[in-house]
């Protein structure tokens, strides 16, 4: 059964359910939502800057997407169409739990189609289809501080951001190249936003980093455990850190295709068949994969 069919069934089952009684629309109280919206406005005004906010208790544990969830709940409207993905997949436990929760407390429609959604919450992937200016992508962030690798002190990293003192981050990359001949960061690749702040793009693969650059969409990043919100407004420059003689490059899937939909232009997950030991590749973005299959086998 396709994810989409399963969701339709689920929706029919819950058809006459109304948002749960005793809770305000969108679960959080109005004061909390207002504070988060104000933090989001500040984050949009200073692209890449980490805005501290009072992260609320959520009915899921910290570190399981509470930062993204709080942004989603503070933005959601009754007529929104929501998509939630976890590493590209619409059907993983974390994604299903969050979308069920938001649907319960806000009564929104749920979809797996990137183009149909108005609000997308994601963990560690950006959808393959280019998103429009009318959509918002909310990313869950475990570690918002890109400089944490090189500096353990929060006070010091804040000073470094304030003074744009980023030579130690660059030194980290220099040492990587001297030791291994290339930059070995595979995900959480640091980027410079709007020519000013170095920002952690959350643990998205390198493949997704170019999608942040001059996009039409608003990207919001929420770290619930670390209590930070930051943003990339539409049409903002986002440059991965690179050297003139060691350019940034994305994962290389040349010669490989999705075993399910045949796509050759998507980020692929490698799956090893336990019985036969055969290696196969599948689209990481399950919604896009479903859509492609449906297109040639309706």
């Amino acid at each position, binding site marked *: 059964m396709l994810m989409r069919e399963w969701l339709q069934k689920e929706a029919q089952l819950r058809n006459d359910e109304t948002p749960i009684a005793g809770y305000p629309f969108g679960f959080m109280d109005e004061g909390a939502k207002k504070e988060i919206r104000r933090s989001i406005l500040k984050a949009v005004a200073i692209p890449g800057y980490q805005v501290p906010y009072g992260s609320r208790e959520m009915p899921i544990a910290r570190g399981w997407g509470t930062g993204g969830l709080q942004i989603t709940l503070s933005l959601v409207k009754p007529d929104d169409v929501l998509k939630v993905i976890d590493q590209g997949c619409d059907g993983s436990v974390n994604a299903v739990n969050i979308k069920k929760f938001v649907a319960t407390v806000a009564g929104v429609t749920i979809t797996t189609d990137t183009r149909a959604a108005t609000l997308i919450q994601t963990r560690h992937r950006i959808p393959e289809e280019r998103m429009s200016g009318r959509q918002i992508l909310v990313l869950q962030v475990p570690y918002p501080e890109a400089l944490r690798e090189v500096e353990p002190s929060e006070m010091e990293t804040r*000073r470094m951001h*304030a*003074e*744009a*003192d980023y*030579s*130690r981050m*660059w*030194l980290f990359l*220099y*040492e990587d*190249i*001297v*030791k291994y001949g290339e930059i070995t960061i595979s995900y959480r690749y640091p980027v410079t936003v709007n020519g000013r702040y170095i920002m952690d793009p959350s643990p998205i693969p390198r493949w997704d980093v170019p999608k942040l650059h001059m996009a039409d969409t608003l990207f919001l990043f929420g770290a619930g455990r670390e209590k930070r919100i930051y943003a990339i407004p539409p049409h903002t420059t986002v440059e991965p850190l690179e*050297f*003139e*003689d*060691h350019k940034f490059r994305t994962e290389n899937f040349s010669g490989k295709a999705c075993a399910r939909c045949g796509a050759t232009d998507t980020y692929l997950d490698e799956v090893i068949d336990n019985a036969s030991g055969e290696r196969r590749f599948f689209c990481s973005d399950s919604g896009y994969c479903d859509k492609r299959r449906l297109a040639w086998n309706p």
Partner: protein
Amino acid sequence: MEPLIRIRGLSKRFGPGCSRCLEATGPEQHTNLCPHCGSVMACNDVSFDLFRNEALGVVGESGSGKSTLVRLLHFEWEATEGTVEMHRSAGIASLPEIFADGSDYSSNLLGLSHFQKRRLRNALMGIVYQNPHLGLRMQVSSGGNIAERLLGAGWRHIGNMRQRAAELLKITEFPVERMDEPPCNFSGGMQQRVQIAKALSNNPLILFLDEVTTGLDLSVQARVLDLIRNLRSEFNLSMLVVSHDLGVINLLCQRTMVMKSGHVVEFGLTDQILQDPQHRYTQLLVASQL
């Protein structure tokens, strides 16, 4: 000739301070600790000029304020009072706003923001500390330590940075083929050479040397001093040489100032100070030289 930097009334106080701090501390009182409020007057009303291509010596006993002076000028510590002005000919392109009023000298550099001070430091200054642990990252490769300064100055080409680092390490007689090893693999003398190469990497105008040869054995000391003397003429450096060793000062510096308890007690040509010391403390210092 006009001085490159003018320093006037530079003071650094640690502690709350009181109205009697100034009269209760100084060389006459043999202390820089105010007995009334417990503040330490580490530097008190220090004024001097530093010229282009000049090596200026600072001598004095431990706790006389020599290193404090260097840290104030290198913007590591905030001065309590005083002005530091730079001549227009220093030509710092990235900070045109400090020469805004059209005069030959900049506004007070101590009043700049941290961001501006960092850029000024990256563009114009180099420092070599007595202890290599202060100036180097011991776990990062020696070449990387030099690259850090270049990265701070906006270099973004690995090949060019490695070439520059190799050139500098060659000048300081460091085994270039070992440039990818961290400084902790090397002896104190070699670490000091990496520090000097790092300090020179951004073509500074001003080099601060804070007791560079203390703790090195005599033959290494002589080679490092020789190196510094050659570098000064080669790179047209202005140097502020802090030492308690009069031999080092005699070898490197044309002019010298003698500090005691945070004050400058004598200032003049190095030869003059060593041959004919005027102040009681300088006489003691010269007489006790082995």
